[in-house]
């Protein structure tokens, strides 16, 4: 019997080269990303451990991204602790408050390499599956143990094979597809499992579109969501990580899957999907809820704050005005993304339309700053979670959608099918 992508990626990091679904294995980590959790929690754990020195100062990435720049005195203190740690430990890769969101910055800096085992102190670390890596999120104590030892135990996940065929319709995005898939699976439909993506639709996707899919697999409980290397990933690596040496990893033809799903978006055309409050797996066709009035429209986050997302939003907003009384907030995923948007004239389009463009940070997505919701407010958002209170007041309501649907809704002041906007 053959092995899945998750099994093969993990097996290449164990001392005996073995990893079969259900096993508990000790694996050697290639890269660990920690963000504000370092200063707020991990340092305390390291103190308890009588920690002295990181296992490898070149394999650790520290990012100040969640409340960047500092939103209050506590986040300022957390950032200060992170900077001190980076200095004291000689950490090679440090991205301070001016750089952007970890899950976009790491690939952009060429730090995400196909075949590697990448851990982040953040649940959306599944994003790097887009690069044929095994990546998952852990929390403070596991991160502290990895910082000290470079290894960690994992239960090797079973895999669900998800094959997608067919082309997207105009103004329908990979966000709509992943909202559909996780809604079919439910909030724990892939708990402890790997969502392994296949098919021509996935092969034809740009890197950013793939990252959106892998980013949100965790909303169905997935541990990881690896994809095969495609041409855009090859180009990305050649351009952004020319010095890295790597080989693509493939699943065996006779790999064993616990379930196999097929989405044929040609036979059953996929339209825009919106997840209603309070769970990302509450996906509904946009026509079922169009007309719901909104107070805020947000485009940003590690899910959909990339250049392709800003481009489609700008196409919809160009020469038009956001509905009076609606706040449109745009937070590019990284400084580099912001600069590209600036050079391509997108920032001017957003501001002419009445939008607010912020610096790159997690910001509004986590209810941190730069767009926190008040009592009773409604937001349509290109982000990943619409849990109660996620973006602010516990009585605010969040609808998750693609950047195209968010932009169209900002123009109308209510949830709108982007295909209905010229």
């Amino acid at each position: 019997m053959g092995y899945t992508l998750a099994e093969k990626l993990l097996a290449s990091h164990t001392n005996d080269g073995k990893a079969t679904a259900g096993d508990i294995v000790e694996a050697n980590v290639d890269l660990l990303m920690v963000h504000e959790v370092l200063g707020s929690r991990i340092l305390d754990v390291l103190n308890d451990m009588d920690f002295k020195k990181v296992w490898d100062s070149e394999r650790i990435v520290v990012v100040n991204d969640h409340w960047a720049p500092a939103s209050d005195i506590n986040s300022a203190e957390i950032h200060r602790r992170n900077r001190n740690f980076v200095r004291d430990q000689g950490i090679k890769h440090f991205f301070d408050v001016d750089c952007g969101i970890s899950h976009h910055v790491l690939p952009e800096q060429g730090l995400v390499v196909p075949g590697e085992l990448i851990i982040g102190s953040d649940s959306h670390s599944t994003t790097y599956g887009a690069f044929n890596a095994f990546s998952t999120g852990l929390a403070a104590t596991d991160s502290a143990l990895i910082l000290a030892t470079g290894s960690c135990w994992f239960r090797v996940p079973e895999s669900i094979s998800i094959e997608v065929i067919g082309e997207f319709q105009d103004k329908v995005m990979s966000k709509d597809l992943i909202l559909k898939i996780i809604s079919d699976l439910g909030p724990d439909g892939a708990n402890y499992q790997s969502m392994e993506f296949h098919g021509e639709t996935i092969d034809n996707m740009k890197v950013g579109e793939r990252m959106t899919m892998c980013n949100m697999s965790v909303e169905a409980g997935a541990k990881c969501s690896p994809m095969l290397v495609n041409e855009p990933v090859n180009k990305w690596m050649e351009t952004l990580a020319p010095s890295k040496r790597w080989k693509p990893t493939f699943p065996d033809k006779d790999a064993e899957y616990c379930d196999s799903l097929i989405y044929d978006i040609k036979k059953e055309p996929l339209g825009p999907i919106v997840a209603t409050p309070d769970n990302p797996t509450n996906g509904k066709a946009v026509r079922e809820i169009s007309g719901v009035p909104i107070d805020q429209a947000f485009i940003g986050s590690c899910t959909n704050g990339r250049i392709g997302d800003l481009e489609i939003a700008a196409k919809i907003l160009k020469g038009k005005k956001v509905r009076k009384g609606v706040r449109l907030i745009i937070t590019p995923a990284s400084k580099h993304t912001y600069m590209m948007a600036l050079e391509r004239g997108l920032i001017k389009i957003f501001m002419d339309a009445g939008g607010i463009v912020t610096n790159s940070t997690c910001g509004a997505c986590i209810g941190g700053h730069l767009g926190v919701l008040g009592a009773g407010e409604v937001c349509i958002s290109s982000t990943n979670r619409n849990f109660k209170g996620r973006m602010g007041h516990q009585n605010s309501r969040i609808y998750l959608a693609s950047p195209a649907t968010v932009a169209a809704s900002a123009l109308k002041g209510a949830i709108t099918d982007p295909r209905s906007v010229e």
Partner: protein
Amino acid sequence: MTGELKPITGRAWVFGNNIDTDQIIQGQYLTLLNYADMAKHTFEIPRPVFASKVKKNDVVIAGRNFGGGSSREEAPKVLLESGIGCVIAESFARIFYRNGFNVGLPLLIIPNVAKLVTDGETVTVDISEGTLSVRSSGDILHGKPLPKRMLDLLKEGGAVAWYKQSVGKH
């Protein structure tokens, strides 16, 4: 702190399915730098009275997929800080399950537990045996026994204690 796991007796706080980590502790409190301050906001959205009424060794009982969403370890930590002796659910989200044992919070899976226990009842949980008994009815519910790795982590007092112990050995 190596030792046997004693039975836990306390009030049952019963919740439904899919209690995500934002319901346990909201993102806005994550920059608080000590757990005592943070614990005052535990379950603030689903059960506003929880933080002021909870007592040591009370038991949280929930339906499916307890602790989904963010990887925040603050979720099991504020439960421990609140005095919660253990959490029993029909299933747990992956990262929460790992985090619970890492910080020394016992977690047990018992089928249909949220339907079989009424909020406010007094229950006794035996982690080693994997059982929960309801004082008023005398009913005993049986869960899956914990994997040895998880029991060892709890007996040791969490992952940090386990690390110190294993580093000491080498």
